[in-house]
């Protein structure tokens, strides 16, 4: 019997200060308790990050993990997770990206990389099977992600590179890490964590491969998943997932088509529902600019693309990627005009290494400027207005280089701008625990409870229960009432918990939620058994989902998060939606209280404080959390990350 099947069996530990690189064996216990990727990362974060540290200081720990399915022939297995304490929100920072990095790292023989401390000068990590070294990145510092990517591929023959751009180097809190030029760990600001550690990039080349316990069975099951889930018709009860059948050609931008021109969320930072350029953004218009579809590693869904803009001022512009994010977080909130502008901004964000979500930060600034809460003095004399792609371009560049007062302000990120500008500005900020995520959940109780209980702040990839997803859970759990949207509060907590646990599993395996959702229970257990040789059961997997989610909440509790912080923004309670079909919709505190009580009860967390209870912690095998909670002093309330250190830095031209 081969020693490790499914997992590679080695954890790489990189001390950036001394340059020491250690290879530690993965323990069976950790593999079976946390499964992989996001699970491994959360365990590391809990063990190694002390509460209250500065996320941009050397004490922060950056953990990159891949799961058992990565690097195999399993479809859609191109995802990998990155976790750290977030400089954007001051709580758990966690993200997931595609490309070929996951396969490269796993095939080189590693399950996890843990970075500690800070390098004295810019470096990048080079991994080629057993050979791992830190190389000088002086010549790459200041370069864009595309240039860095190209240079490392050319010099080292890397199969995949993840790197930061100027934004990460300048500790912009909304900066991201770009994998293979177009795939991003967007939310939570990992770019700034890379930058604070003087880590420019990681290049991998893996040739060893991953052992499989029962190759024939694994191949048969992989084929079955492709035929059934990817190419097959929608399954019974999964009719709501029909949406993914168009997802392959149009990618996530097909979600534009399900909206109506006068019924959008968040136009001009949630001031109206009328999106004047709706017709320019329908996915047919994107297909006109699409040259070729692009798949991540071993992906039959291929929802991404390479594009060439056909007309307008940006005609001839080439790039790759494009998700619905560029529409919702940039075009809609800032009221832009067409795909040409969106593609141009997409390239700019990718090259500079800023999260697409930064568009929301810019919209927030424009909104505050209109309200008079941001003065012309604070914008360096710049007139901020809606619908101007040139202006957005300038603001993105200013952010990446922390240029001037405005650039420095924007670089602090959405929620932190509110903190800097004062309580009135913060009142208008749309966020939960520092993050903002589309859509507007006023009058959508199912979304409200899920967004408020997400462990990295408001987010749709930590347990989606919007649209068809709630219908799916209503079908599976045989509770039609649960499937009702709007102000219905019935069963929303059950759907939320189920969805959150399943999405944890996706990040642990780690496969793509777009391609294969939902994959759990016996079906997933059978696949993992054939892959690893360890007999998995549906119950074991469900517990892993719950364990990792509870551990994440425990991490946040240690950073001071309590139930009173897991709430919708005050603006959602006080200000009804202005127009469109959802006119008059608002968040209701009684609905929130009812659902939150039910949710916390079901999770086994304390109803008053949202701290996981001892009984639950013991049941999930998280005794170390229980001990620390019992011994620990009360943790100071969460307010966000400390801001002083990342305030204006001298530019050295």
């Amino acid at each position: 019997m081969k020693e490790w099947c499914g997992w590679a069996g080695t954890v790489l530990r990189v001390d950036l200060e001394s340059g020491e690189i250690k290879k530690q064996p993965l323990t069976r216990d950790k593999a079976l308790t946390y499964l992989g990727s996001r699970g491994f990362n959360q365990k590391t974060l809990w063990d190694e990050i002390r509460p209250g540290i500065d996320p941009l200081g050397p004490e922060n720990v950056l953990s990159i993990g891949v799961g058992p399915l990565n690097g195999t022939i399993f479809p859609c297995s191109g995802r990998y997770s990155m976790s750290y304490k977030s400089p954007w929100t001051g709580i758990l920072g966690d993200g997931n990206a595609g490309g070929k990095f996951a396969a490269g790292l796993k095939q080189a023989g590693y399950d996890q990389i843990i970075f500690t401390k800070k390098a004295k000068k810019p470096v990048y990590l080079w991994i080629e099977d057993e050979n791992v070294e830190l190389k000088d990145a002086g010549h790459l510092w200041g370069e864009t992600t595309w240039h860095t990517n190209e240079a490392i591929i050319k010099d080292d023959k890397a199969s995949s590179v993840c790197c930061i751009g100027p934004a990460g180097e300048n500790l912009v809190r909304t900066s991201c890490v770009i994998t293979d030029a177009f795939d991003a760990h967007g939310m939570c600001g990992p770019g700034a964590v890379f930058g604070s550690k003087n880590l420019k990039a990681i290049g991998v080349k893996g040739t060893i491969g991953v052992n499989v316990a029962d190759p024939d069975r694994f191949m048969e099951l992989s084929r079955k998943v492709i035929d059934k889930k990817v190419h097959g018709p929608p399954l019974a009860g999964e009719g709501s997932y029909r949406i993914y059948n168009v997802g392959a050609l149009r990618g996530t931008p097909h979600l534009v088509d399900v909206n109506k021109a006068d019924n959008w969320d968040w136009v001009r930072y949630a001031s109206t529902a009328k999106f004047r350029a709706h017709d320019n953004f329908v996915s047919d218009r994107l297909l006109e600019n699409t040259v070729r579809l692009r798949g991540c590693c071993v992906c039959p869904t291929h929802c991404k693309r390479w594009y060439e803009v056909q007309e307008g001022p940006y005609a001839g512009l080439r790039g790759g990627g494009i998700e619905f994010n560029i529409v919702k977080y940039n075009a809609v909130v800032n009221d832009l005009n067409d795909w040409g502008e969106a593609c141009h901004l997409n390239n700019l964000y990718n090259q500079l290494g800023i999260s697409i979500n930064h568009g929301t930060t810019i919209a927030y600034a424009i909104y505050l400027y209109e309200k008079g809460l941001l003065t012309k003095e604070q914008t360096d004399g710049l007139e901020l207005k809606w619908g101007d792609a040139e202006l957005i371009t300038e603001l993105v560049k200013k952010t990446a280089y922390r240029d001037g007062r405005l650039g420095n302000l924007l670089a602090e990120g959405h929620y932190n701008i509110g903190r800097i500008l004062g309580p009135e500005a913060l009142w208008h900020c749309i966020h939960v625990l520092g993050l903002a995520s589309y859509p507007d959940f006023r009058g959508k109780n199912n979304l409200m409870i899920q967004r408020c209980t997400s462990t990295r702040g408001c987010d749709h990839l930590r347990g989606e229960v919007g649209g068809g997803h709630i219908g799916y859970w209503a079908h599976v759990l045989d509770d039609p009432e649960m499937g009702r949207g709007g102000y219905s509060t019935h069963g929303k907590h059950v759907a939320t918990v189920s969805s959150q646990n399943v999405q944890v599993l996706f990040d642990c395996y780690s496969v793509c939620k777009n391609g294969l959702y939902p994959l759990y229970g016996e079906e997933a257990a059978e696949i993992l058994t054939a892959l690893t040789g360890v007999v998995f059961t549906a119950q074991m997997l469900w517990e892993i989902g719950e364990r990792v989610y509870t551990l994440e909440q425990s991490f946040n509790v240690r950073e001071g998060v309590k139930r009173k912080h897991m709430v919708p923004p005050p603006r959602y309670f006080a200000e009804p939606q202005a127009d469109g079909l959802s006119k008059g919709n608002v968040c209701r505190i009684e609905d929130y209280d009812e659902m939150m009580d039910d949710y916390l009860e079901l999770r086994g967390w304390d109803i008053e404080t949202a701290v996981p209870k001892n009984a639950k912690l013991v049941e999930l095998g998280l005794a170390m959390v229980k001990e620390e909670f019992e011994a620990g002093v009360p943790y100071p309330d969460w307010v966000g990350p400390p801001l002083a250190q990342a305030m204006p830095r001298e530019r050295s031209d």
Partner: protein
Amino acid sequence: MRPRWFVEPFEEESRFIPPPRISGKCTGCGTCEAICSFTHFEVASNALSAIHVVNNDMDWIQGRSSKIIEIDVCRQCPGLSPCMAVCPKLAEGALFRDKKTSAVLVDADECIRCGACIRACPYDSMSHSPRLDAMIKCDLCGGEPKCVEWCPPKVLRYVKE
């Protein structure tokens, strides 16, 4: 002469073919590489694959190349193929034709790993794995190429000439 079978990359003229699942062009996902190495060596690794997807997207974006993706795979060249022509152990049968498919195969026992065939191949489709000491070359999976079966956008076909 016996018919020649080989795997050929081809892309449709139209941009996309309905149903929407099929794009008609290579997406660069590397499923062919993964399934090739998995079928032959039980691990997925593009270093152990006889087919290669070469991604030139950064060149394409900057206008230095008209192609985003190229696929390198053995065409099982007819007659005395370039790899056979340079093989010093051809007489001993280090490279030989498969009876069923006419594919050029390597006899690992006779092959001396000199690398002449790797350098001679016009399609960059032969390689050597130092880790497994194996010559890596397309053998058409005995007549049922797995890459053709698994390719998600169906841009590989098994053809006879």
